[in-house]
């Protein structure tokens, strides 16, 4: 009986944890005090224009209340809307495609359990050329490989879990891997740090940079957004710590750090 019900339907409680590990809140909640979680509105400025995270609460008109589980799975796995149109990869489906079927089902169960909000999503504000969604099809053909994470049997369970947390759920590379002129991540510089112009940047996460920190220091940073000597993280990473890394179980945090330690060291990019 128990086995059947688990199989038939996702577990919303587990799904809540997956939503945290996936950092969904950040882009899908407006930056305001007392904002409704997951009701959308966060602006993401990119060289291609400004994207707004949409309302993903189960409201039938304003949110995704009319979606089926299959619609949800297709959105994250294939980067497609229920009507078949492509999502812009500002929605990090190149990472989320790696999420396992079981995790997607649990995540869907959690999304269904949220209180619906009628907040209207705003349209994206994109540069002239980038407005056509069919061009995203070409982009996907060039840069996107759909399919769930396949653990490497040659690696330990801990390293596989860490890799899954970093590459699939955490989508760390969306900021920490530099992109080419078409906005696709440079695979040779995976997690090697990226600059976004005007001084903002994301750190190199390979041992070149993180090797200077002990495990304890690194974990404390990922739990509290502070180092033991009282240094405070920049605001955007502090938010990730609050929403995601600070919410992970101790085992998952260990796995995440172990995986980062196992990365090939990449030199800092030239200034």
């Amino acid at each position: 009986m128990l086995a059947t019900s688990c199989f038939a339907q996702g577990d919303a409680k587990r799904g809540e944890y997956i939503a945290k590990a996936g950092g969904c809140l950040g882009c899908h909640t407006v930056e305001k005090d007392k904002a409704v979680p997951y009701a959308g509105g966060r602006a993401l400025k990119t060289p291609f224009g400004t994207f707004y995270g949409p309302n993903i609460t189960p409201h039938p008109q304003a949110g995704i209340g009319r979606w089926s589980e299959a619609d949800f799975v297709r959105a994250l796995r294939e980067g497609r809307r229920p009507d078949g149109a492509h999502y812009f990869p500002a929605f990090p489906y190149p990472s989320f495609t790696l999420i396992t079927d079981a995790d997607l089902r649990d995540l869907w169960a959690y999304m269904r359990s949220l209180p619906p909000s009628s907040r209207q999503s705003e349209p994206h504000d994109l540069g002239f050329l980038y407005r056509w969604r069919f061009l995203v099809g070409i982009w996907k053909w060039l840069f996107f490989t759909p399919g769930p994470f396949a653990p490497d049997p040659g690696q330990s369970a801990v390293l596989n879990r860490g890799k899954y947390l970093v590459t699939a759920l955490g989508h760390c590379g969306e900021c920490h891997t530099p992109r080419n002129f078409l906005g696709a991540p440079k695979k040779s510089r995976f997690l090697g740090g990226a600059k976004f112009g005007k001084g903002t940047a994301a750190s190199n996460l390979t041992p070149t940079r993180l090797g200077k920190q002990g495990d304890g220091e690194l974990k404390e940073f990922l739990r509290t957004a502070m180092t033991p000597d009282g240094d405070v993280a920049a605001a955007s990473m502090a938010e990730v710590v609050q929403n995601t890394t600070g919410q992970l179980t101790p085992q998952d945090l260990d796995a995440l750090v172990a995986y980062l330690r196992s990365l090939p060291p990449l030199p800092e990019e030239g200034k």
Partner: protein
Amino acid sequence: MKKTLLAAGVAIVVGGVAGTALAQVKPEVLVKQRQAVMTLQGKYFGPIAGMASGKVTPYNADVVSRSATYLENLAQMAWDGFHESTKGGKNTNALPEIWSQKAKFDELSQRLQTETAKLGEVARAKDEAGVKRQYAAVGKVCGACHESFRQKL
């Protein structure tokens, strides 16, 4: 009358000296000094954050009060070290945006002083709930400024 004039003269000379003194300090020394301030801010913010977040137990209102008072004073000290002469210097993570977006930088430095003063107040009043609220406000200003004006490490 003569005495007043003389005093005024002395005041002008002394004021002038104080004003130019800073300009004559070597840029690399200014960088070192402001980094020392940042390090000490970390030293005193650390225990406050640790106790306010419950990571360090037990909560010690005396330690928090003392640290917050030091922090409040330190929060006023770094800013004149961000002199134009230090722009593009070595051994610093300060970004040139500090000078190209001066108004924003000044606003954040002012906000740090306001928020740490409030933290000092609640800490000295031994208001634990107030500290737990206010330490987060201070951390937010630290992070906001590091976001735009410090090179990512």
